[in-house]
C-alpha cells in the first residue's frame, strides 16, 4: 500500500514508514521493518510512533489507513480559512453526533493549530487573517482529522485539509507548490465569493468590497487548481473527465438580496440525519442558476473537466464582519457541512 505523507507530500511505500519510540524518551531510534511492528526500540523503549522517511511523525494509525486529501481552494479573500474553521467546528460539535461518527484532530499539532483558529474566531470574535502563500521553504502543514464510523462496517478515514492560500493559485508558478497535494486529492471544495462576481444589485449590501484588484478571479483559480488533479482511469488512453468530486460552494449567501432569499432552498436549514435528495437538488439548481446569472463562466469549465460536480450555498459566519470583528449575534454557520458531507458520501467515508 502506498501512503501519502501529509508533510513531504510524497507517496511512500509502507516499508518507508518506519517505527520510532516516542519522542519523550529522547532516544529517537528509528527502525525499519516492513509490516511487523517491533515491540521495543534498540534501547528498550516501547515503540509508539511511525515516521515518514522525511522524518515527520505521522498521526497514530495513519500509516495503516492512509489519508484522504480534501483541498479547500478559492480566490484571494474567498474566506477559505474561516470556512474551514467553522466547518471543523460544526462537523465536530453537530454533525458527528447526529451521524453517529466521531470526528476529531488526529494529532496534537493539528489540534493545537485548529484551536488557535477556533479561539480567535469563536471566543475572541476576531476575523481570521489571510493565509500566507506557500513557499518551498515554508510548506503548509495540513490540518489532519480522523473520522471514525462504528458499527458493522467500521471504517476510519483520515481527512487532510489543505487550506490553500488564495495567493497559492495566483499564477502558474505558485500553483506548482500545491500541485503535490492537489494531484492526490480525493475531493475539492471550491469556494466562490459572490462579491467576486458580476452580481449587480443581487447583494443586499452593495457596498461590500468586491474582488481585490490585480488577483485572479474564480475562473482562473479553477483553471490552476484543475491542472494537477488526477484524471480518471481511462485518462491515459483518451481524455476523460476528472473523477474527483468537486463541491462548488457559494459563500456568504446571507448577503444575498431579500428578493433572492424568498422561496430559496439555500436559506432553509438542511438536515444531517436524513439527507433529502430534493433539498440537495433544489440547492444545486439554485446555486447553478445564480452562478449563471452572474456570468461566472464556471459551469462550462466544470462540465468539461469534471465528472461529478455539486453546487452548494453556505454562510460560515451568518453575517458580514463588522470592522474585522464577528457581529454581536455571534458566529452563525449556515449549511457549512453540506459540501464536505457530499464529498464524504461520494468517497464512501460515511456511506
Amino acid at each position, binding site marked *: 500500500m502506498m501512503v501519502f505523507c501529509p508533510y513531504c507530500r510524497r507517496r511512500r511505500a509502507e516499508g518507508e514508514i518506519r517505527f520510532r519510540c516516542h519522542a519523550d524518551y529522547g532516544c529517537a531510534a528509528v527502525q525499519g521493518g516492513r509490516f511487523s511492528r517491533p515491540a521495543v526500540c534498540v534501547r528498550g523503549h516501547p515503540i509508539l510512533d511511525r515516521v515518514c522517511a522525511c522524518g515527520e511523525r505521522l498521526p497514530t494509525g495513519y500509516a495503516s489507513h492512509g489519508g484522504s486529501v480534501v483541498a479547500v481552494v478559492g480566490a484571494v479573500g474567498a474566506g477559505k480559512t474561516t470556512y474551514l474553521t467553522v466547518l471543523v467546528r460544526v462537523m465536530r460539535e453537530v454533525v458527528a453526533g447526529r451521524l453517529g461518527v466521531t470526528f476529531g484532530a488526529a494529532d496534537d499539532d493539528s489540534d493545537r493549530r485548529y484551536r488557535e483558529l477556533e479561539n480567535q474566531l469563536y471566543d475572541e470574535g476576531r476575523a481570521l487573517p489571510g493565509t500566507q502563500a506557500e513557499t518551498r521553504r515554508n510548506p503548509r502543514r495540513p490540518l489532519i482529522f480522523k473520522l471514525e464510523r462504528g458499527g458493522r462496517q467500521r471504517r476510519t478515514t483520515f481527512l487532510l485539509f489543505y487550506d490553500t492560500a488564495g495567493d497559492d493559485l495566483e499564477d502558474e508558478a505558485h500553483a506548482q507548490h500545491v500541485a503535490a497535494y492537489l494531484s492526490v486529492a480525493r475531493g475539492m471544495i471550491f469556494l466562490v465569493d459572490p462579491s467576486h462576481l458580476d452580481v449587480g444589485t443581487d447583494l443586499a449590501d452593495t457596498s461590500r468590497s468586491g474582488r481585490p484588484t490585480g488577483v485572479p478571479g474564480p475562473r482562473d483559480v479553477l483553471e490552476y487548481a484543475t491542472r494537477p488533479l488526477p484524471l480518471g482511469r481511462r485518462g491515459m488512453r483518451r481524455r476523460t473527465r476528472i473523477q474527483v468530486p468537486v463541491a462548488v460552494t457559494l459563500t456568504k449567501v446571507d448577503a444575498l438580496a431579500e428578493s433572492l432569499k424568498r422561496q430559496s432552498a439555500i436559506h432553509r436549514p438542511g438536515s444531517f440525519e436524513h439527507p433529502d435528495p430534493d433539498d440537495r437538488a433544489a440547492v444545486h439548481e439554485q446555486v447553478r442558476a445564480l452562478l449563471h*446569472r452572474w456570468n461566472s463562466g464556471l459551469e462550462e469549465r466544470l462540465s468539461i473537466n469534471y465528472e461529478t460536480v455539486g453546487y452548494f450555498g453556505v454562510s460560515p459566519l451568518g453575517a458580514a464582519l463588522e470592522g474585522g470583528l464577528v457581529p454581536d449575534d455571534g458566529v452563525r454557520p449556515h449549511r457549512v457541512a453540506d459540501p464536505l458531507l457530499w464529498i464524504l458520501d461520494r468517497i464512501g467515508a460515511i456511506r
Partner: protein
Amino acid sequence: MAIDGRALLVAVEEFDSGSLSRLRTPISDADQLAEVLRREDVGRYQVDAVVTNPDRRTLVERLHEFFDEVRDNEVALVHIATHGLVDAQGNLYLATSDSVGGVPNTALSAADLAGYVRACRCPRVLVILDCCYSARALIGSMEPREKPIKDELRSGAAEGSGSGKVIIASSFARGRAYENDDASVLTGHLITGLSSGSADLNGDGVVTAEEMFSYLEDAMSRSDPPQAPRMLADIVELGIRIALNPQGPRRSLEVRYRELLGQASGDPRVFDDLGRRYLIDDPFNLAEVRERVAWTVAYWANLARGSELGHLRIVRRLQRDHEEKYADLFTQPIEVIAHAIESSRPRSDDLRSELRRKAEPWRMIARADADSLRRRYRATTEELEALCRELGIEFREPDRLVALPPVAGAPAMHRILERNRLRHVVDLIWAADAQDCRIVGAVGEEPFGVVEHPGFQLDQAAVAAGASRSEDPALRPVWTELRLLTPAELVALLRWQIAEIARSANRSRADVLSVLLDAGVIDAEARRVGYAVSREPRSRDRRFDELRHDLDAGRLYSAHRRVAGRPGKSRTKEEAEALPWLQRRVLLAEQLRESAREQAEARAAWPLLDHARDLVSDLPELDDVARRFPPEAPGDVTVHVRGAGVEIRWRRTGDADAGVRYRVGRKSGPAAEFMEIPARVEDGCRAYDDDPPAGRPLWYCVTAERGFVASETIEPAAGEPVHLYPPVHDLQAAYDGSRVTVSWSMHPDARSVIIRRLTRHSAAVAEFEVEIRGDGYADDGVEEERTYLYEVSALYHGDGMSDVVSAEIVTDPIGEPVSDLAVAYARAGWLSVQARRPNAGSLVIAFAEREPPPVGTVVRGSAFLDVAEPLVTTAVSDRVELAEPDRGGWFCAVTVVGDNYTYGARTQFVRIPVISGRLVVRRRGDRMQVCWPWPPELVQAEVVTRPDGGPEQRHAVTRAAYQNEGGVWLPSTGAAVSVEVQPVGSGRRARLTGIGLSTRLAARPVVRYTIAPDPAGAPYSVAVTVTAEYAASVARLVAVASARSHQPIEESDGAVVWSHDDLELSAGESSRFTFTWAQAAPGPAWIRCFAPNDDVELLDPPVTQQRRRWARR
C-alpha cells in the same frame, strides 16, 4: 549488492624517447584507483595489476585480452592515463612507452581502441581517457560532436536500462589534461567521487555513468586551471551502474543526524569527525559545506528549543564548540576547510592519524605507547620522533596525581568550598586576590607559586591571615581544619583538589582543559593534569575503594590497622602513600585519649576526647574513658500543671557550652520505670509535656547527658505526683422554642461530665445536677422568657473532677420560619422579591454570600448579623423591589422576634446579564430562525414562542448550541407569533430568568403547490394544484416558464404563462387550476410559480420531479 566489474588500468609515465616529457602521476593514480575499485563497498571490481609503461604492442595485447575475457554480465572499465598525440588530420593517438614525440603513428590510435570497444561483446563498457585532447577519441578529424555517438559505437548490444558503451574524456578536443601535485585532475576527482560516494548525485546508493560524468564536470570546472571533460555514449539514457555509494543510500538529513546523535550519546567521539559533525559529505564543495553548516546549526537550535532532553547536553556542547572553535573555520578558503575536515576523519591505517588520535587533545604521548605504535606501523624511531616534532606531540609519562585525600577532612572541606563557590584553598586564603591568578606547581615537582603574586606562600601565616579576614560562619570548620595542617599538607591538599576538579570534569565529559584553566592552573600544567587524568585507570580495585570509603567516613583507625597489618610489599601504591599520615593521626589521637584519661576534671577531659574523636572517630577505648567523666546532674527539679500540659523546671549546672543536653522522663505509677518523652526543652532549664495522660498520677524526672554518657536521674524533691483534670471546651447552649440543647467537647481520658442547671435568680442553688456520658444534653424542662446558667465539669477515673465551665441562655420566644420566597428580575438592575409574611414578628429579607443554615434554625441577633446582610424589613407588604446585588449569593427570608432570628425559605441568586440589541426572527420555509446579540458572560437563554391560536412553547439554548446551529431554528406554521428571548441563570436550587427581548412576527401562511402535465386535459395542458395548511389569501400567483436549462429565480426570469389574482385558500384544502401551453412555442425546461406580492411562504414542488417532468417533454 555489488557491481560485478572488471577493470583494466593503464598508466604510462615514462617514455623511451626523450621527445615526450615524463608524467608524474599516472602510476600512483592508477594504484589508488585500483584500490578504490577493489573495495567491497564501492564495487568489488576485479582489477589485475596496473599495466605500467607498456609499449604499443603490449598495450594492444592487454586490451585484446581484457575485452576477450570480460563477461556479458560484467561492467568493463578501462582507464588509460598517458600523453595524447594528434596527427595532422586531427586524429588522436594514445602514447605508449615506445612512442616518439611528433610521430603519432608510433602510438595507439584512438580509432583502434574504438574498434576494440565496438567489437567487445560485453554490453557495458566504460572507457576513461586521462590525456590531452582526449575528446578527439573516436571522432576523427572533425570537431568533436558532443552528442550520443550512436553510429560510431552501436554494436548490437542489448538495449535496455543499464547498458551502453561510454567514453569519458578528460578534456575537450583542443584542451589539455593537467596534473596536480599528487594526482591528475580527472583521476583525482574520479577517486574522490567513488570513495566518498559524492558521485552518487541522486542519493540512491548507486553511481551511474551519467552521475559520474556530471560529478566530474562539476568538480573539474572548479579546479585550477579548470578543465572540461566530455562524455560520449551510444545511448541517451544509459544508467550503467558503475559503482556503489559506500555511504549507502542518502537518507534525509534529519534522520541521518538523529542516528549520529544516538551514536554520540554512547560515544561522543563520533563528532570528532567534522564531516559527521556538520553532515558534510563532500568537503571540497563549498556550496554544500555552507548549506550543511547552516542546516546543522539551525537543527541544533531546533532541538535545543524543543528541549529534547536526551540530546540536550550534547547539542549544547556542539553549539558551544561551534561558536568558540568552528564558526571561524567556515569563513576560510575551501582548501583550509577541506583540510580541516579531512584531517579530522579517523584513519586507523595511518601512523600519523593514529599518533594524533592517541595524543589528542593534550599533544602528549607516553613513550611506551608511541613505541608500540611505531612497531605496529614498522616505522623507525627517527621517523616517529620526526613525526611527533611535526605534529607538536611531546613524549611524556603521565604525572602522578594525588589520588587519596591527603588529610582526613579533605573531602568535607572540598564540598564546603564548592558550596561557597570557591575553587580551592588558594581561593579561600587569598579571596579576591586569587580570582584571576595563575597557579604554578599544581602538578609535578615544581614548588607552589602564583604567577601574579610571587609572595604567596601556602603556610600557617597565610592561613591565619586569611582566617582573620573571613567572616563567613559557613567556612569556619574549614579554617579550623586548615590551621592544623603543615605547609606540605596544604600544598598536597591544593594538588589533590585540582586533581579532583579535573577528574570530576573528565567524568562529566566536560572540557577538562577549560575547567582547569578556569581553576587558575597555568596552561602547560593544565595540559599535564588533563593528560594524567585521562590516563588514570577508570576502574579501581576493591582495596582502593575500601581505603577511600574508610577515609571519607573518618574510620581512620580501621584503615590504619588494615594497611599497617599488610606486609610492605603487598601494599598498593595508594596504601603506601596513606600509611605515614594515618600513623601520625592515630598516634596523636591515642596520645589525646591517654592524657584525657589522666585528667581529674571532666571539663578538662572533654575537649581532649572530642579532639581525639574528630581525628580518629573509631579510636578504641575512647568511650570507656569518656564514661569516667559524666556531666553534672541538674538541680532543683519542680513540676507544674499548665492547662492541659505540664511544665518541668530545673537548675542548670556546669558550663553552658560544654555540650550537655537534658532529657525528661515520665511514669504513671510509683513502681513503673521512667520513659523518655518528647518534651520541648527551652533555655536548657525547662521543658513542656504537651500531651500528658489525664486523670492519673504522673511522676517526672530530668537527666543531663553529654555524648552518650548520662548523669544520674533527678526527681522533684517532694516526690509527690501531679494530677491533670482538663475541663470541657467548646461549650454551647441553644434554645429552639421548646428546649435547650447544651453541647461540649471533652478530653479523651474523661469518663463523663456533670451538668448543673442554675437560674439567674437563684444562682447559688442548683435546680438539678446530672451525670452524662457523651457530648450533648437536651433540657426539655425550660420555660419561656427565663435566663438559665449551665455549669459543666469533666469527671475522670478515680473521681477526679475538672474545673467548671459555664454557658448562659435566655429563652426568648422565637418566630415561625417563612415557607415561600421568590426572586425575579423586575427590570434592568432591580429585583422583585415576594415572600409570605409570618403571623408573628417581622419579616427580614437578607442577603448572604454563603448558603444560610437550614430552615428553622434560630440564632441570636449578633450571630445573624455576622453572616448575613438584612436588605429590607417589612411588616406589611409581601412583595418588595430591591436593587440587584453586585455579586452572586443567597436571598433568605428571616422571621425576627425579639433578638431571635429564625431562618426561613432561601433561594440562590446568580447575576444574569441583560440581553439587549435587536431580536431578529426570519421565516425560512417551514422553519423560523431566531437570532440576537449574545452577551459574552451569558451561558444559557430561553426562547418562548406564543403563536396566535397555538400553545406557548419554550426552548432552552446554550451558547455553544446557538453558535453551532447558527441561531435557534424553530418550526413555523405561518401563523402570527410572539417571540421572546430571556437570559437564564441557575444556582444549586434556583432558576432565574433575566431581562430579554421580544418581537412579533406577522402571519405568513405556508402555501405549497405542484405543477404537472394534465393527463385528462387537452394536449399541452398543465395543471397547478395549490394547498395551504391554514387559511390563506394570495393576492397574485403566477406561473413562469423558461426554455433555458437554468431554474428561474425570479418571475422576470421567464415568460408568465398563467396567473391568478385574489386567490382564497381554505385550511387543508387544495385548489386546482389548468392552463394550456401554446403549441407553437418550444417546450419549457422549467415551470415555476411565484407569489410576487410576497404575502405567503410559497414552497416549490421537488426539483428532481420537475426536472424529469419538463425535460421529458
